[in-house]
């Protein structure tokens, strides 16, 4: 069990690359934190700093009350699962799982008991005598989990552990990892670029880009109240739609988002937060699922355009729409039938609009709260 605190942590490499900038993060004991972001955003570097595999260039990394900047990995009580599994190919599954305990001078009886116990939980008891080369991807992943589990570490680190698995296995392993967190009652730090993994597993998500934390919050916070366009774009499938327009007064004096023939009347709480932006051009974000088809009058609180693509995805379908020269994507029910070039109107859920500053990309709704 451990609480991890980053205080103004930076990571710079010898070649000048600044991988992590001014990271301030407080990870609570037993929390499940997911570091989410695109490749090269600094999330794995952050994880490696926790493990001790990368040195902290500047700032303090604290476990409970102890600064661990210079503590080597084998002296930190952490376990790690790697994207590529990193199993020792010359050892059997049994020896792979027990290696960490052996290195900590555990007795043979303790090693045997814990290895068999972990193997049973992970349903790999029948594989203990095999070598990694004789296992499937999913089985290797379980062995990697077992290797970390048996140590009963204070901090459990996972670096994209599911990204090499096929889609079905990934979903079932997600559930197992969540269960593992529940039963182990330890701090989990999990790195991924997969938004679905982050949203399903995390107590809190840390979204990173270019080494900078963009937003820290619960999955709901991150998805429903993104603090900037990067966060809003990174989560959601299809991605959120953006277009620019002006904030002006509507016919009854209420605030409206105006663009060409479109007029979106903003809810009162939005208007209160945006009153200083009246008359300014802003960027509107509408998530793909925040529209309803059909009932609305074109122009007012509804988008009209022609269908540019229809992409069925089983439970739903993605509709591409040409809206004033911009292509927007929406997710609608699979029962609706549309053809290429057809004119459609989609009513916008006004309570779920996102409005950003056009230059900085910062949310004008959630950051103002």
């Amino acid at each position, binding site marked *: 069990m451990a609480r991890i605190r980053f205080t103004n942590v930076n990571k710079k490499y010898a070649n000048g690359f600044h991988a992590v900038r001014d990271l301030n993060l407080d990870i609570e004991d037993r929390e499940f934190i997911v570091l989410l972001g695109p490749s090269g955003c600094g999330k794995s570097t952050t994880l490696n700093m926790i493990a001790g595999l990368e040195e902290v260039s500047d700032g303090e990394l604290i476990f409970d009350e102890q600064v661990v900047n210079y503590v080597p990995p084998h002296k930190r009580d952490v376990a790690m699962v790697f994207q590529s599994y990193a199993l020792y190919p010359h050892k059997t599954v049994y020896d792979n799982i027990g290696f960490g305990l052996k*290195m900590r001078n555990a007795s043979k009886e303790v090693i045997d008991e814990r290895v068999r116990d972990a193997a049973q939980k992970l349903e790999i008891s029948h594989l203990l005598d095999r070598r990694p080369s004789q296992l499937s991807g999913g089985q290797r992943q379980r062995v990697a989990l077992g290797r970390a589990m048996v140590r009963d570490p204070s901090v459990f680190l996972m670096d994209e552990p599911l990204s090499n698995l096929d889609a079905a296995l990934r979903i079932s392993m997600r559930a197992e990892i969540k269960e593992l967190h529940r039963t182990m009652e330890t701090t989990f730090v999990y790195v991924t670029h997969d938004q679905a993994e982050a949203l399903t597993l995390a107590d809190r998500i840390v979204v990173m880009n270019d080494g900078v934390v963009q937003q820290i919050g619960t999955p709901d916070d991150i998805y429903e109240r993104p603090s900037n366009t990067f966060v809003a774009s990174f989560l959601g499938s299809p991605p959120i739609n953006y277009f620019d327009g002006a904030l002006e007064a509507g016919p009854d004096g209420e605030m409206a988002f105006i663009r060409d023939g479109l007029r979106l009347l903003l809810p009162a709480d939005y208007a209160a937060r945006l009153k200083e932006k009246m008359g300014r051009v802003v960027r509107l974000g509408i998530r793909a699922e925040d529209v309803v088809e059909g009932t609305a009058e074109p122009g007012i609180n509804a988008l009209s355009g022609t269908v540019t693509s229809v992409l069925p995805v089983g439970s739903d379908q993605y509709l591409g729409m040409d809206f004033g020269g911009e292509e927007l994507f929406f997710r609608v029910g699979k029962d609706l039938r549309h053809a290429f070039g057809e004119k459609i109107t989609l009513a916008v859920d006004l309570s779920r609009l996102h409005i950003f500053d056009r230059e900085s990309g910062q949310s004008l709704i959630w950051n103002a709260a």
Partner: protein
Amino acid sequence: MSDMPITPPVDRIDYRRRQKIGRIVQRLVILISAILLTAYVLAPVSWLVSSAFQTETEIVSIPPHWIPEHPTLRNFEAIFTAGNDEPVTYETRSGTDPAAGDFIPSTAENLLPSMANSLIVATLVVILNLLVGVPAAYAIAKIRFWGRNASVYFILITRVIPDIALVVPFFLVIRKLGMLDTLGSLVITYLAITVPFTVFILIQYFEGLPDELDKAARVDGCSRFQALIKVFLPLSMPSLVAVVLFTFLTSWNEFLLALMFTQTSASQTLPILLASFTSDFTVSFSFLNAAGVLAVVPPVIVAIVFERYIVSGLTAGAVKG
């Protein structure tokens, strides 16, 4: 019009037969090439072994006998009893007919001591190479440090200089150190030649092993050194064997430096001694060839012992392939 064929006329070439013949010809070419290459490589060795069991007369007979007509162990006997008889001089030599095979080279008694010298030097060079080369290669391959690339280039540059150019500087250093005519002089100079190669070979291999294995070992509780010993070395057997074979054979066969630094039987190695057999008044081919066979035995044993470790696919399953 209705009788017109709608497909082009059937080709009369029998492609199946053609393919079959092609395959047989291909195999035949490969087989003949392999036999010729093998014969080319094995012929000198075969003659060395065969003639070691022949008398001097039979060796010089025309046509040569690839299989001895009267196999004899006298040549080997002579090697192991050399030094027990009176010293070989011009007078003693002239009393017998060299062609009869009774002639023993004047330095014959040094053969077994020189073999021991070679063995000691080669073994020390192998051990020291591994002790120095393995940690150096691991550090360069897996640890980021200032001057890492420069180290690699520096190591490579030392191998660009031909050995002959180093003989004089080496000689001066060894003389200054007072190590002329000692085994130590050979060990030191052979290390200078072989360590860069060892490090270079091992760097290539270690770089091919996934970084995650190193990280996993360290998170699992290994220090850097333990990660090297417990994870990297067991996986590096093929390259370690290559290094062992290379350094052993280089030391075993080296002639130029040994010729410069050694003068007496205290430090002379096998190649020097074998060469001295040809500097007598007469050359005894039978004795020389028997000594040659003995000289081949240790490297062959080393190769056979280590060959089974040269296996591929040792790292399979470490990471997602």
